[in-house]
């Protein structure tokens, strides 16, 4: 398997785009023509070769450029990566999980050689060759969580489990849908979800927490979440809202296909072995509406979902003011024909 890593940007001139192959494997999140919250969890098992579900940590054509973007975000704002002192062991757990999975699943891109605690990690796409001692922080240039998540696509929330709750006690968050690690650090599951409308009344979070507390070693889980983003911005953080919030006003019927993106998060959950912590990787996939409608089923369905979405959800997801324009643009791609069940293209 060869991946042609694209040289592209997620800021300034926004050269990001998806190849035709990347469009085909995009994780379209709507299995029917409408959307409401649910605890839509399923086992994170390898599924559908070539899809984003095939491997534990998906690596795609955007990998190298996404890692460059992360380094820029961190250089400007180091607080995007934080780990409370008791979470270092969980960081080593995460480093092991990622290195072992990537070396096994992408042997042509990553290698891990282990001799007891003497480890040798080779990351070919990023040109990294690192010898270090497992569990000895002094032998890495960063803490273990920061070291490995500077080399892995997606945000990472590392959650301590105690008192029948989960606590946001560590994370690497640079590609987020408008939430802040620096604000949420140390909060519990109910506290950091407090801004979400409707779901509390529906009892979603009580059920979701119960499920997550029981995620077992060797049995990871996953779900999809989504929002809409103007321009292919990975970093839509509250910290930088003054930079990207105004971009929402630049949207026109003419530039809709190029500027408007469906943003999908593949969220996975793994129990970590030594720390008993839970790691919550949140992997962001972006697709231009112009790319999305090349799959007729997706064009039809996205039009219906956005048209019928409850107002609070469109407000919370941050696209209420642009919704009429988006729906009007998408309506050209909805001929009213029925859509097939499931998320995959026809």
């Amino acid at each position, binding site marked *: 398997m060869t991946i042609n890593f694209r040289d592209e940007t997620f800021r300034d001139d926004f050269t990001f785009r998806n190849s035709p192959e990347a469009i085909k494997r995009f994780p379209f999140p709507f299995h029917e023509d409408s959307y409401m919250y649910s605890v839509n969890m399923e*086992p994170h098992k390898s599924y559908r070769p070539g899809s984003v579900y095939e491997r534990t940590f998906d690596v795609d054509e955007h990998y190298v450029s996404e890692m460059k973007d992360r380094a820029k975000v961190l250089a400007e704002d180091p607080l995007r990566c934080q780990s409370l*002192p*008791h*979470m270092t*062991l969980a960081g080593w757990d995460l480093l092991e999980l990622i290195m072992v999975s990537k070396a096994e699943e992408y042997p042509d891109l990553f290698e891990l050689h282990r001799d007891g605690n003497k480890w040798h990690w080779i990351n070919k796409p990023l040109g990294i060759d690192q010898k270090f001692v497992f*569990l000895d922080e002094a032998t890495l240039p960063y803490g273990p969580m920061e070291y490995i998540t500077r080399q892995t696509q997606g945000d990472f929330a590392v959650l*301590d*489990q*105690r*008192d029948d709750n989960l606590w946001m006690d560590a994370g690497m968050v640079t590609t987020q849908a408008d939430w802040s690690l620096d604000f949420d650090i140390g909060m519990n599951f109910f506290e950091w979800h407090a801004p979400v409308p409707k779901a509390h009344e529906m009892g979603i979070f009580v059920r979701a927490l*119960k499920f997550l507390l*029981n*995620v*077992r*070693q*060797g*049995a990871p*889980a996953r779900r999809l979440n989504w929002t809409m983003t103007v321009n292919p911005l990975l970093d839509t953080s509250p910290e930088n809202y003054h930079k990207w919030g105004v971009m929402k006003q630049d949207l026109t019927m003419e530039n809709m296909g190029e500027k408007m993106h469906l943003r999908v998060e593949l969220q996975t959950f793994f129990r970590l*072995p*030594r*720390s*008993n912590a839970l790691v919550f990787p949140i992997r962001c996939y972006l697709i231009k509406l112009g790319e999305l409608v090349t799959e007729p089923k997706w064009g039809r369905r996205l039009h219906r979902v956005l048209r019928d979405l409850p107002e609070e959800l469109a407000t919370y997801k941050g696209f209420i003011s642009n919704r009429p324009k988006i729906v009007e643009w998408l309506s050209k791609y909805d001929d009213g024909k029925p859509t097939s069940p499931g998320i995959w293209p026809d």
Partner: protein
Amino acid sequence: MSAGTDKIAVTVTNVVPVNELVTRFRFARTDGGLMPTFSGGAHTVVEMKDGATMRLNPYSLMSDPADRTAYTISVRRDDQGRGGSLFMHRNVKPGLEMVISNPVNLFPLDLRAKKHLMIAGGIGITPFIAQIKQLAASNGNFELHYSVRTASLASYADELSTAHPTRVHIYHDDKKQVIDLENLLDGQPLGTHLYVCGPKGMIKWVRGTAEGLGWPREAVHDEEFLAPPSGKPFEVKLAVSNKVIQVGEHQSLLEAIEAAGVDAPYLCRGGACGQCETDVIGYDGKFLHNDHWLTEEQHASGKKIMPCVSRFEGKTLVLDR
């Protein structure tokens, strides 16, 4: 079977009598691979094919969490029990192939603690052995107070005392040695977390004393696996699967549901984790709640039952399963 459970096929590689009541078992993967790393305090659920009966009992892992060659557990023989421990003692020999669950930790160390203060009674020592190995490897600060009936029944007391002479304190019941709990708790530095594993009375005593001295609830941790109690047989209707099942005298409700071929979730099988919580659709009779998951109000409501340890006496019971 529990949702998302990944099980491990193992072979018994060693069976060692520790004293007249306790025997230690070592499990290695049958396929020769490595065991998953685990965290100190975790348990595994061991599946026992006892004739026509399938028994599933949780046992704390006591091996070094970093040692991936094998897991070890210690089982105390309970002659009055339902038969799981007797099966382990009588039927499990080296070479036997068995199935165990991936590790699950319901008694983890709180890694924020400045000091870990451990109180063990009897076979309750086993999770602490793994936690101490984990802490010793990372220069963790711990102190163990271990109460035993007699020196001859003091499982692993000598090994622990030899390895950590200043951190381990043994108390013998037959010599009238008792943990001076109030003084012990009074002298602890700020940031100490307290852990207790042992008989019900001991857990109650330690929790009550700590609470009386003003210890924060979040700094006190316990683990008690309840064995499912025996009782009068009873009949249950499973509404979703449309089956009527009989729960035997020495069988738990969960075991009877499983024996009928109905898939029911579980983790600890000891009334602690909440995973098997089941809705009651209708009943005429009396619940015998034995779990420590549901609240008193839920016990009184007649709307919930934990089938791993709780029973029923009466005419009809209909469950949403």
